[in-house]
């Protein structure tokens, strides 16, 4: 069948297995020469694509929940949407969540996802007590950061290349309400934005939306959005049941937009309008629009049309970040390749051999898949890697082996661990082959 991920590029033909039990998984892994596990397909490119795919869609059971410690054990195919639906009413939240809840636990571990709280909480792997991993040999191993650190830190962020993640135990965090106390700080340019991040580093959640088409003195004008889980005392008088948030209405993009719908003009107008609608100040918002602003618009990836799109997400070290970001942003603004969505975020330190975060600033930009965009990326690759940065594998669809090797210093160690548990290279993706993990 035809399979594609969130960026609608590439579209490939693949055999898709849908195991229902661990025994099914073991049989498929034994029978297939090469395969890659796949969850909800929310990576942007080819990370979870190969000509044989093992879908975790039926491995979606909650296994155990300890309401005294908040330890939640579930199968790889359980989605973050399922988790927040089940757990928020009981006063628990995901310790780390990406900007969409339509990801699976398995995919989130394999991508070692980060959230708006990375600078204080680290990425998802910092909150995983243990994993159950099915290796190429068929052996199921329980992997903990204490017991088997090498395999654990290769698997978290390891893009599904060490084996099939069957289960994960996540340490959930306590919340008093389903609401977020939010503060918005508008910044006129990139220097102000970086300053604002540094000044507000004590906030649990922080992310900045950037108008990346603004030029000159407005280069990098942005709205920094800060948040804390609201306490009962803060919102108690407003809501009858502070843990139940109204489910927001969801609308869908009904069809593939034609290719010309998004152009410099429309994107510029959209970004200018969006910047203008942000207001400095504090408010209480429900957790859904705060964490998952785009989940309310299903299939929003269709606005890029059939050519597909990609996200260029990189991280650069904290030192000298402002100057480098200015260079990169002005290069993008010059190119006129409109990015509909651009997001800036401060990262803290991170373990994990192929985990994306490092102490520094990450910028994520969406682009339609065009030859011009691809040329721009090659230029940006050099700027990013020359300055000690790297690209996010989960968003990537075109990185070359050099960019990968330069960005990921622990790649060699990762390959060693992979060889030890997968000597014949059974778990591979189109992406892993492209960047040289064979």
């Amino acid at each position, binding site marked *: 069948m035809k399979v594609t991920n969130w960026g609608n590029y590439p579209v490939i033909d693949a055999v898709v297995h849908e195991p229902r*039990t661990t025994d099914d998984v073991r049989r498929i892994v034994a029978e297939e020469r090469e395969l890659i596990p796949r969850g909800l397909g929310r990576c942007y490119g080819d990370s979870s694509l190969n000509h044989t795919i093992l879908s975790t869609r039926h491995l979606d*059971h*909650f*296994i*155990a929940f300890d309401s005294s410690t908040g330890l939640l054990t579930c199968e790889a195919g359980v989605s973050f949407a399922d988790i927040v639906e*089940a757990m928020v*009413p009981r006063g628990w939240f995901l310790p780390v969540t990406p900007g969409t809840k339509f990801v699976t636990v398995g995919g989130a571990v394999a991508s070692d996802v980060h959230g708006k709280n990375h600078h204080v909480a680290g990425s998802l792997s910092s909150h995983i007590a243990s994993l159950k991993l099915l290796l190429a040999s068929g052996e199921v191993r329980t992997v903990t950061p204490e017991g088997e650190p090498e395999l654990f830190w290769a698997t978290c962020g390891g893009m599904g290349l060490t084996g099939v993640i069957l289960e994960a135990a996540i340490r959930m965090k306590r919340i008093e309400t389903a609401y977020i106390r939010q503060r918005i700080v508008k910044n006129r340019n990139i220097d102000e934005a970086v300053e604002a991040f540094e000044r507000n580093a004590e906030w649990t959640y922080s992310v900045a939306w950037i108008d990346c088409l603004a030029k000159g003195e407005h280069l990098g004008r942005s709205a920094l959005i800060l948040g804390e889980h609201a306490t009962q005392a803060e919102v108690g008088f407003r809501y009858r049941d502070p843990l139940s948030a109204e489910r927001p209405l969801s609308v869908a993009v009904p069809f593939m937009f034609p290719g010309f719908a998004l152009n410099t003009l429309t994107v510029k107008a959209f970004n200018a309008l969006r910047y203008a609608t942000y207001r400095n100040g504090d408010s209480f918002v429900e957790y859904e629009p705060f964490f998952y602003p785009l989940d309310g618009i299903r299939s929003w990836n269709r606005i890029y049309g059939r050519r597909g799109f990609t996200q260029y997400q990189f991280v650069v070290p904290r030192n000298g970040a402002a100057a480098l970001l200015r260079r990169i942003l002005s290069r993008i603004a010059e190119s006129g390749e409109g990015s509909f969505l651009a997001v800036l975020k401060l990262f803290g330190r991170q373990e994990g051999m192929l985990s994306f975060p490092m102490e520094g600033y990450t910028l994520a930009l969406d682009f339609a898949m065009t030859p011009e965009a691809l040329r721009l990326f090659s230029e940006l690759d050099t700027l990013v890697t020359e300055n000690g940065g790297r690209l996010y594998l989960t968003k990537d669809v075109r990185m070359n082996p050099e960019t990968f090797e330069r960005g990921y210093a622990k790649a060699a160690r990762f390959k060693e661990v992979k060889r030890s548990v997968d000597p014949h290279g059974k778990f591979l993706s189109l992406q892993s082959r492209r960047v040289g993990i064979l």
Partner: protein
Amino acid sequence: MRSVLFIGAGSDITRPLAHRYARAGYGIVLASRSLPALERMADDIRIRFNVDARAYAFDVTRTEMHASFYAALPEPPEIVVCLAGTLGEQALSEQDIGAARQVIDANFTGIVSILHIVAADFERRKKGSIVGVSSVAGERGRKSNYVYAAAKAGFTAFLSGLRNRLYPSHVHVLTVHPGFIRTKMIAGRETPGIITASPEQVAKDIYEAQRAGKDFIYSRWFWRYIMLLFTMIPESVAKKLDLR
């Protein structure tokens, strides 16, 4: 706690249907032969929806155990959904009466046994709802599966009689005739994609019909018209067709 009992809970329809009832606050009781799979489903439901969920080993063909099974439930259910059934091997049924009897027992005789126990309880309590998932296959025998189809035809007739009997006692009986569903039952068989429903769609149809107190539904709705046409073909013509 109000609860729903699923007989033949190994069906692929059970999980999406149980999720709907659990979301509405019902406790879930799952009964079928494969206990480990049911326990996995029950654990999942308990954590997801914060409701009571239990799993029981139950074999619809072992009728001698049915009364004690039902009596041992912690409380009588408010709704019983019967999804028990097996397609069997038609060729085997033609050669071996033992095999044919197994198909008939799993799709009919055994269900008569357990649903009569449920019916007696509901009749006494003057409330309750029974959902029987039969099949469009029961509306006309075809050479590819007519032993199964005959058992389903029996089940459908049984349900309408049961409805008639329980009506004065305010007990609701819903008959469901699903068409093709993408399940384990037909895994590997060719079915026309466009009229093959997902278990989720069928679960939604059943849930809504049960809540609305309907007597009979097709799922998906268009099977009503497919079966209308199909059963209009006279036997003199149908016998000559290659019906699979």
